[in-house]
């Protein structure tokens, strides 16, 4: 039985002026509020870093902003940290903290905005910046068991790290290392899962499930087994090469990431993308979302061992993959985006073929959905399992379909539209139970909405240009964003004067959601763990970059 989504209550819509006024009123001379640049609508510069936690708290809790991420830059002689908040309907608000290079520690905001926890840990691991008041720094990206102390690979002075002959980084594991175990109960133990589990068919992630026997009391995920330092190897590279990196670090959402990257470049060079390219970009984004959700549904059926349903869902997904390949030449939509538009055009016949394939996929999805909701043994494993309360979801800033299942209905396509989404008709589904069944329903609903968007995009295609020239690129700073299938993808870019990338920062939805994943797993039995993992559908490799 399908639950009709609750009436759409969009998050608080505030005007820029309201936010600016509120900040000025409360913090007065300690801040400078100004218009932002490069996609950011409001920039709050702090003179005093200690005002940072209260401001963040006000933005996140009182004004209902969601947290995007932290961009750490090492400029000449100083650190520049940009904390990005999204006010729905208004835009991106950045809180700018600048500190001299010699600063030892900055105040941590993770006690107020818990979602910033991992962003600060990443900054500490990669840049060596300490955050005072953070409960747990270290052993994050550079696993303590493998990496020596004091290595901050993203510092500028480590540029030569790209050179492979730095042998002292290839170490043997430290045999004295012990994991930090939280549960102190006589008889408690930590069951290790991964990094190679499920026969290696799952992306590499390691869990220590602390338990006293039946229920998981504490689940600690250890990520970054797939860390390839995309942000670092992008430095001093031309945009065309970094575009390839943006496409390929998380290939199952590759179009969304490359789109966010291209939007950032277009914002820097102020390029107007032609209308046909915009519509095609929406079409391709939604095609990718539809295919991704079919894959996620396959994963959920597989985790509950409902073999026939798994096969049915896998058939839908493979057909969509083949439709993508037939339409664009690549199964995962590589090589389509370019700054300024798209690299190739599509004929009307191929659009018609694509629509046929999508209609067939939607019909199959409806049939599968009816069958699944009819199977009580399947629903038993999803209902009331892996529950994330709306309060916790808001607290830990869950995004994407996972957030929408727990009443956090943020969606960049609606809250901060790009490429013309504001002119399209679509709904953003929302559920409040926050269990596995709600997440499954969200996946199906979003898949149908994506098909609807593809049809609308096809009908709006007017003949025209598919790209506008972007070269030559000069210096600038911009933020590009897109709603990837797992959630918001933010690509922050700073180009130097010759058009090479000076700083490339990627903030992904998986990174956000992995922080709060353990909340869903704790206090449920071991047997539910793989199912909860599948209903979240998070990608470790998207988080690791």
């Amino acid at each position, binding site marked *: 039985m399908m639950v009709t989504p609750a009436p759409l209550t969009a998050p608080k819509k505030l005007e820029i002026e309201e936010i600016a006024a509120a900040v000025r009123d409360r913090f007065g001379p300690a801040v400078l509020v100004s218009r932002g640049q490069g996609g950011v609508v409001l920039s709050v510069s702090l003179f005093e870093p200690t005002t940072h936690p209260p401001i963040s708290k006000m933005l996140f809790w009182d004004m209902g902003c969601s947290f995007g991420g932290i961009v750490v830059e090492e400029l000449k002689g100083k650190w520049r940290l940009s904390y990005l908040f999204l006010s729905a309907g208004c835009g991106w608000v950045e809180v700018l903290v600048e500190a001299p290079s010699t600063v030892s520690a900055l105040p941590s905001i993770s006690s107020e905005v818990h979602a910033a926890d991992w962003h600060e840990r990443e900054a500490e691991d990669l840049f060596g910046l300490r955050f005072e008041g953070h409960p747990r720094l270290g052993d994050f990206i550079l696993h303590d068991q493998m990496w020596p102390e004091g290595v901050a690979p993203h510092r500028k002075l480590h540029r030569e790290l790209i050179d492979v002959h730095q042998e002292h980084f290839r170490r043997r594991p430290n045999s004295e290392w012990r994991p930090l175990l939280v549960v102190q109960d006589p008889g408690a133990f930590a069951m290790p899962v991964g990094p190679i589990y499920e026969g290696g068919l799952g992306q*590499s992630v390691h869990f220590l499930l602390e338990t006293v026997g039946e229920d998981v009391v504490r689940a600690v995920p250890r990520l970054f*087994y797939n860390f*390839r330092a995309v942000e670092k190897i992008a430095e001093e590279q031309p945009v065309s090469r970094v575009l390839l990196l943006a496409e390929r670090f998380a290939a199952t959402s590759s179009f969304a990431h490359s789109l966010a990257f291209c939007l950032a470049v277009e914002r820097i060079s102020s390029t107007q993308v032609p209308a046909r390219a915009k519509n095609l970009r929406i079409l391709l984004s939604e095609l990718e979302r539809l295919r991704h959700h079919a894959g996620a549904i396959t994963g959920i059926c597989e985790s509950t061992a409902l073999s026939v349903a798994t096969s049915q869902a896998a058939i839908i997904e493979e057909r969509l993959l083949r*439709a993508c*390949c037939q339409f664009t030449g690549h199964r995962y939509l590589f090589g389509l985006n370019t700054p300024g538009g798209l690299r190739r055009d599509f004929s009307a016949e191929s659009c018609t073929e694509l629509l046929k394939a999508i209609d067939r996929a939607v019909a199959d999805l409806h049939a599968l959905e009816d069958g699944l909701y009819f199977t009580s043994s399947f629903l038993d494993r999803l209902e009331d399992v892996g529950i994330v309360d709306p309060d916790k979801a808001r607290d830990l800033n869950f995004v994407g379909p996972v957030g929408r299942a727990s009443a956090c209905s943020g969606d960049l396509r609606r809250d901060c539209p790009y490429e013309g989404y504001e002119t399209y008709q679509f709904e953003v589904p929302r559920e409040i139970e926050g269990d596995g069944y709600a997440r499954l329903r969200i996946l199906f609903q979003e898949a149908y909405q994506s098909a609807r968007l593809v049809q609308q995009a096809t009908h709006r295609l007017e003949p025209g240009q598919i790209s506008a020239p972007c070269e030559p690129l000069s210096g600038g700073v911009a933020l590009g964003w897109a709603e990837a299938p797992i959630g918001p993808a933010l690509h922050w870019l700073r180009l130097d004067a010759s058009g090479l990338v000076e700083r490339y920062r990627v903030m992904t939805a998986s990174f956000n959601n992995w922080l709060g994943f353990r909340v869903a797993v704790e206090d449920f039995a071991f047997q539910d763990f793989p199912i909860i993992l599948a209903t979240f559908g998070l990608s470790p490799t998207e988080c690791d970059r």
Partner: protein
Amino acid sequence: MSFWFWRGLQKGVQTTRYPRAYENAAGVTPGRPVATQFSSAHEAALAAQVCPVGAITPQDNSARVNLALCIHCQRCHFGDEPVMEWRSDYEWTRLPDTQQRYEPLPKAYKRSLHIIVVDAGDCGACLHEVKQLNTPFYNMHRLGMFFTATPRAADLLVVVGPVSENMRVPLLKTYEAMPNPKKVLAVGTCAISGGIFGQSFVSAGGVSSILPVDLEIPGDPAPPLAILHGLLVVTGRKAPVGHESASERSS
């Protein structure tokens, strides 16, 4: 639960007939660039410059392709510059450059192969394609191939990804935990040459710098049929590409 039984029967058989018959359906492979003749050396040089990773090298009037470096960015497929010819095939499993011939697994494994997969920094696409082998369209079980959960029962190690530093030790441990005879198959351009990630302080630039690789399957990602072809080569039921036509191999 007879409902799902009937539902499954209604769908019919979707499985490809490969390797009995060559699979021609649309969308099974992105294809690959092949050596192309141009009208002048200048055009061949221009075509070669299009490739961001140097997989195309000009040689007089023609441009040669080293598929082991190709990352399927499709810049040589469509665009303003002169483009290469593309072929829609998928049987491109090759020997590593350092090897001359391939010794398949003993006869007992010909129709019974157990595989363990390790994700060593993969972007997700190659791993996803490997997972598709278990779906009704490709169904590798009918060929006697299975994924195992533990390397102790595995004959073949499939590695995807350029081997990130944090996965180096788990990959080595997996290899050491496998009993003899064992083979290593590197799937995807990243696993062969590091792909776009190359060699860095966190990327080994390919499996061959960590483990002895027996066979390679280029592609970014390698489509499921290419991987299936590769598995058939591992068991000796098909021959690798490098073995057949040495002219396609790079200098």
